[in-house]
């Protein structure tokens, strides 16, 4: 049966939170000795990108959002760290995968969306929409922060 129809909550923290987390991760990156070597730009790019995503996930949702959880878990797996999240109250249901709940018309698009949004594979369509909305907000906030940083640090 359909669950409760609570008002959709997609509050996103202010820009400062994002900026703070991102700068922290950047400075952590800079502390690594191998970071500032002029060669190997691609590695640096990848690290910065990963740092951007991780800091965004931490700033925006922490462990309260499905996509941020999936992002953090994915990032930790790359570092071979084990990430433990506190148990959620609701069990992650596999019942969602029942075929009669899927509408074939919108399923292709939903599949593409699932590939884009982290953690999308484990969500039902309805939950996917909420997570996408929050993800979009956080992404746009992160882009703004990074843009400001780039503009600020650009050589005059």
């Amino acid at each position, binding site marked *: 049966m359909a669950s409760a129809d609570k008002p959709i909550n997609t509050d996103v923290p202010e820009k400062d939170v994002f900026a703070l987390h991102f700068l922290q991760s950047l400075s952590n990156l800079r502390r690594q000795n191998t970071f500032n070597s002029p060669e190997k730009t691609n590695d640096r790019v990848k690290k910065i*990108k990963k740092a951007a995503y991780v800091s965004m996930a931490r700033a925006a949702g922490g462990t309260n959002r499905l996509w941020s959880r999936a992002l953090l878990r994915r990032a930790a797996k790359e570092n071979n760290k084990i990430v433990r999240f506190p148990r959620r109250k609701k069990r992650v249901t596999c019942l969602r995968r029942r075929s009669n709940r899927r509408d074939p018309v919108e399923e292709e698009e939903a599949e593409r969306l699932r590939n884009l949004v982290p953690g999308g594979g484990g969500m039902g369509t309805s939950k996917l*929409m909420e997570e996408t909305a929050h993800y979009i907000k956080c992404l746009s906030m992160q882009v703004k922060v990074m843009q400001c940083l*780039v503009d600020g640090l650009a050589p005059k």
Partner: protein
Amino acid sequence: MLEGLVSPESLSLSYADMSVPERLKWLQQHQQQEVLSLSSNDSPDLLQILQFHGSNNDELLQSTFSHFQMVGSGFGTNYNMGFGHSHEAMDGYISRTSSCQIHSPDTMGVMLKNSEENRAISLKNKRKSEVCLIIVKTREEEKTEKKIKVEAETESNISNKEASSDTSKETSKGASQIQKLDYIHVRARRGEATDRHSLAERARREKISKKMKYLQDLVPGCNTVTGKAGVLDEIINYVQSLQRQVEFLSMKLAVINPELELGVEDLSVKQFQAYFTNFPVVIASKPSVMVDVPLFPLDQQGSLNLSVSNPNQTSIDAPSESWETQSQSLFASVLR
């Protein structure tokens, strides 16, 4: 007990004479009595009432009765009370009782859950097709469905006229007495299937479309496109473009930083200035944040804080576009 109810004989006499709105008014009048009296489990009397009235709708009543039996004894008897009165205005009656009775602890898993406000709102909804009962929909006949729609429409009209506070009052009274639980009332449209699965399916689809509307407001440029597929396409493109922007900006950052070739101390100062321009508000008004930042030496923070605290006050409320330009100007001033 059944004292609160009108006796069956008077029911049978008066019922045929009353017209639909009168019946509904009668039902409303007896609403409160029924709420109090429906907590009983007096099945033999109910069966009498059922047999009394269920002459031409035997199978209907039997099917619904059996349906309720399997659902739960307490709840079933409550519904049977409703059936006992009539079968035509049953729907309106049932919706009334259910709006109160759903608060009973032995709930059925059949009813959808919703918040009370949404239920009141859904009753007020202009789209009349939003209020109905799922229980009633277990019947398969379209004729009765039409009647249900009529009844429920008139009921919703009356409730709208009498101010929606009535329904919320009833529900709140029911809630105050018993444990509060929330349900959604979904109305099946005319000509659509009435079984439970399609109703739940429809409710789910409506939820998804509501969320898609929310997404449509979020993504710029989605208003022109109609249809779910187009909106979803736009959303996907937007997410992809945002991710590409992140990648592009991170590349830019990677290029910029090592090119500056600053030492650790200078780096921290410059970084602090960049940090500073990003959120001058934080430094000016939230000293706790600085405690969280172990990166920078405290004396630097103190000095820079003092120097630029005044110009910051003006930029606190700046919107995002001018935020960036102001931050850049601040940055330039600090660098000097």
